[in-house]
């Protein structure tokens, strides 16, 4: 399954529902599909649109969902400049708790079974084990 998502934060919710609604029944448990899959994909799309395509309406974020026997992989590529994931501050430190932003990657890492970036840092792959 492939989807080009407009570079518009307002469409994130609809894009998540479109992708989640097309997953074959039983691929993920209803609970993991309802919460983990949707939240992680929303995070990945928001990050890609905000920092990758910089909300430029002329650009799109490419989503590809790969169904494997034992897992679902969501690839989100923004074609942007990329970023260094090693310098993202820990949002749970006391000095960061009242910050409005900076939790996206942290949340994704806790909701899926694996998070991987391409070398440039402008593509992310989220893996959820089946079930």
């Amino acid at each position, binding site marked *: 399954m492939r989807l080009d998502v407009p570079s518009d934060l307002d469409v994130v*919710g609809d894009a998540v529902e479109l992708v989640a609604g097309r997953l074959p029944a039983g691929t993920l448990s209803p609970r993991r599909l309802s919460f983990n899959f949707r939240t992680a994909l929303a995070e990945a799309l928001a990050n890609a649109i905000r920092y990758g395509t910089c909300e430029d309406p002329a650009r799109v974020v490419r989503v590809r969902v790969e169904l494997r026997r034992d897992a679902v992989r969501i690839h989100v590529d923004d074609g942007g400049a990329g970023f260094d994931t090693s310098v993202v501050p820990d949002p749970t430190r006391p000095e960061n708790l009242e910050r409005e932003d900076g939790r996206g990657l942290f949340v994704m890492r806790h909701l899926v079974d694996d998070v991987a970036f391409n070398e440039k840092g402008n593509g992310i792959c989220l893996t959820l084990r089946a079930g």
Partner: protein
Amino acid sequence: MSFSLKKDKSGVVVVGVDGQLIVGNRQELKQKVLDALDGGAKRFVIDFTKTGYIDSSGLGVLVSLSKKIREQGGELRLAGLNEDLQTLFELTKLDTLFAITKTADEALAAF
């Protein structure tokens, strides 16, 4: 997805979040609460009983609103988190920033 605002008899504003609280609708929630704050309301409960998921932008707007409400001498309480949402607040340690109750009625009773 939508937000509903009701004021109880003691003046507490209860905000229901139907669907999800994410990057695409967080500003709508923020504006509704800020409008109520500007209108004199001080005590707020956000009820997540009908909420499927919240992303980090949604969490961020709750942090922001809580600060603004406290600055005005008010308080924001959260209620109705399902098990997954409760875990999300715990792993981000935001459960330490908010008063969280199981139901909106409990939050109202605690004011």
